[in-house]
């Protein structure tokens, strides 16, 4: 999807069309980063992940807003449904990106171009949103090609054309080539993907070890990674940056409890349990610490996770600095592996039932509809600067 959050906002409020729109934080927000900038805003050099203050300097007359995640999510789900009508093999890569394996849908639709115009047409019709498609032999090339074809474009790279398409591109476009790898390659005189593809394998493996093989394959547009519809998440985390650095740990803890409720809700939605709880703290000086605790038994209950975090808090408080960001990460996730207990399982079973009902209410009326007393204490209408929190 092209400038997804900004495009959704422009559909919701047509007055915003054609104007430089920045989603991530409003004019008064002094911190945070740009989530999405409309193409009009990009002309000023604004891009996602740029600090808001910098964006405001570059484009003082731009329209800044925090965003409405629930609308983005709804739009994303509509698009996903459209993609699933083309092929059951849809792998969402993020809220605004997905891979679709269309190799089995060729005869039904009559070729790549027909598939493309069908998808683009339906998305335009049902959501009024612009999108870019690339139909290519594999995920790697699709990713790069769709990037090239933006905005509102379509690019088809046929089998055998991958290497030629990639050749002229700068190294940075190739997934897996980060700043470090690029530096090494540039020292070797390699500046384009084509030059990388031409490098003898022995040279590459000599420099990068076995990873050199993967680099060369990527440079030649070769990839065999399949489109996997259901991928099991490795971790679930929720974090937020405060509008002002906080010193009041009681308040920080209330926000943390709120974040935990969010994370645990997502955890249960996926039918998963977590065995390792991590507390993440970024202090005013940007130093970031994480504190982890492994539970004896995996859990999906808010109470269990909050208890662990509560016990981890004193460690985070040892550093006497203001807190800029707080977050919780649930890892060591398992799925469908709930080991029942001989003793004392009744209490947790009761809680599971309670939370199951709570989750059902939330599914219908939204997450905010039901929250724990402790997190409500921080204010009924939580407005955290992180739009993705309403995920």
């Amino acid at each position: 999807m092209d400038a997804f959050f900004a495009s959704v906002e422009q559909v919701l409020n047509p007055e915003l069309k054609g104007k430089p729109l920045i989603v991530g934080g409003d004019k008064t927000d002094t911190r945070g980063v740009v989530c999405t900038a409309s193409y009009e805003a990009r002309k000023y050099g604004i891009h996602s992940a740029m600090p808001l203050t910098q964006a405001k300097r570059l484009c003082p007359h731009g329209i800044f807003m925090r965003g409405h995640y629930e609308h983005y999510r709804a739009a994303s789900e509509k698009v996903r449904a459209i993609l699933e009508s083309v092929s059951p093999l849809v792998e969402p890569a993020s809220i605004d990106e997905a891979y679709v394996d269309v190799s089995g849908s060729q005869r039904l639709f009559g070729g790549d171009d027909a598939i493309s115009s069908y998808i683009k047409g339906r998305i335009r019709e049902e959501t009024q949103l612009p999108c870019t498609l690339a139909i290519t032999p594999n995920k790697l090339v699709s990713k790069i090609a769709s990037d090239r074809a933006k905005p509102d474009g379509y690019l088809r790279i046929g089998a055998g054309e991958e290497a030629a398409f990639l050749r002229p591109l700068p190294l940075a476009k190739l997934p897996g080539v980060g700043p470090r790898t690029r530096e090494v390659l540039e020292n070797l005189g390699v500046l384009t993907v084509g030059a990388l593809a031409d490098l003898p394998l022995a040279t590459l493996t000599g420099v990068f070890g076995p990873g050199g093989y993967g680099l060369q394959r990527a440079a030649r547009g070769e990839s065999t990674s399949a489109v996997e519809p259901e991928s099991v998440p490795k971790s679930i985390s929720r974090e937020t940056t405060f509008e002002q650095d906080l010193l009041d740990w009681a308040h920080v803890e209330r926000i943390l409890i709120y974040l935990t409720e969010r994370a645990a809700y997502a955890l249960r939605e996926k039918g998963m349990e977590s065995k390792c709880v991590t507390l993440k703290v970024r202090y005013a000086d940007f130093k970031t610490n994480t504190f982890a605790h492994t539970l004896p038994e995996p859990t999906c209950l808010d109470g269990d996770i909050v208890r662990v975090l509560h016990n981890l808090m004193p460690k985070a408080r040892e550093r006497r600095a203001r807190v800029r960001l707080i977050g919780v990460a649930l890892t060591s996730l398992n799925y469908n592996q709930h080991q029942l207990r001989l003793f004392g399982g009744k209490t947790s079973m009761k809680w599971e039932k309670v939370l199951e009902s709570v989750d059902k209410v939330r599914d219908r009326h939204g997450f905010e509809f039901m929250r724990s007393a402790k997190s409500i204490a921080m204010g009924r209408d939580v407005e955290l600067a992180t739009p993705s929190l309403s995920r």
Partner: protein
Amino acid sequence: MKISIPRQDLLDAVNKVKTVVSPKSALPILSHILMETGESSVKLTATDLKVSIECKVDCTVEEQGSLTVSSQRLSSILSELPEGDLSISVGGNNVISLESGKIQTKLFSMSAEEFPPVRSFDTIEPLVLPQRLLKRMFQKTSFAICSDQARYNLTGLLCELDSGRLTVVATDGRRMSLYAESEGIPDGINLKVIIPGKMIGELERLLGEDGDVSVYLDETQAAFAFDSIRLVTALIEGNFPNYDMVIPKKHDKEALLNTSLFTEAVRRTRTMTNDKFNSVRFALTEGVITLHVVTPEVGEYEEEMPLEYQGAPVEIAFNPDFLLEVLRRIDTEKLCIVLKDAMSPGLVKPYKDGPQDNYLNVIMPIRI
């Protein structure tokens, strides 16, 4: 103190006691072994303050006394020394001399007076039990002892003596193992103690097949004396959960399986699981049990095998490790599994001319 002793005899004794020594202890003396001379023997003691092991070994005592020596250092020196007699003595400043033929070793050490005393149970009347029986009871159940120190009361084995029947129970909250015996158990004494898992491990290792063991008990400690060895432990204070309550009594689905064939099948399913996804589904229908594993990103496994079962179909999932630990300890040709439904505990017991109700294993399922 000065003694002379065959190297192998001393090494054997050191190996018996050294397992309780914790290499990284806050108290340096706890990394040492205490040696005290007797009439014509030397007594070695090692302790971690909770569990202590003493072992007596015959030797020539040239001069009475006591000394301490680093457990790790002593055992590594002894295992490298040539066969033959060696002499150990202590000089000024707690310097230990160890001589064997032309080899002379001096070891810096600590005063024997610093070594924490081990409780003696001289005034208590012991309970005498066959070694073989205790060893067997521990071996059958100790695997289920909880290793999570946060649940302290479960980190030991419950030993309950009541009307001539000894029952031992271990649980970690997810499975439970119980073994009961009446034969060779003295009547008239009733007691209920929790013995720490570490002590049970040491006893399993040291108890033999022949002879008796004298068990000394008071409110806080227990001692086990047999052969030339004595072990003393602090008891776990706390409440053991009501184990009888979780033993299924009204389960209606009873199946008989060939122990070794079932063990092999479960072992095979085990190869298809991983750390995160460690459950096997068991579907029982008349005459056939199906074992089924689905592990994301790994694959699937299914196996059918015959069983004696006439009840309604039932499906349940277990952690295969929990089952295997039980199966390994069942030595009858057949075993009996009793179930109710997918959410209720499963009961596994040996079967020989009927279910053997003195060895019960309760395993909680994984929710399907």
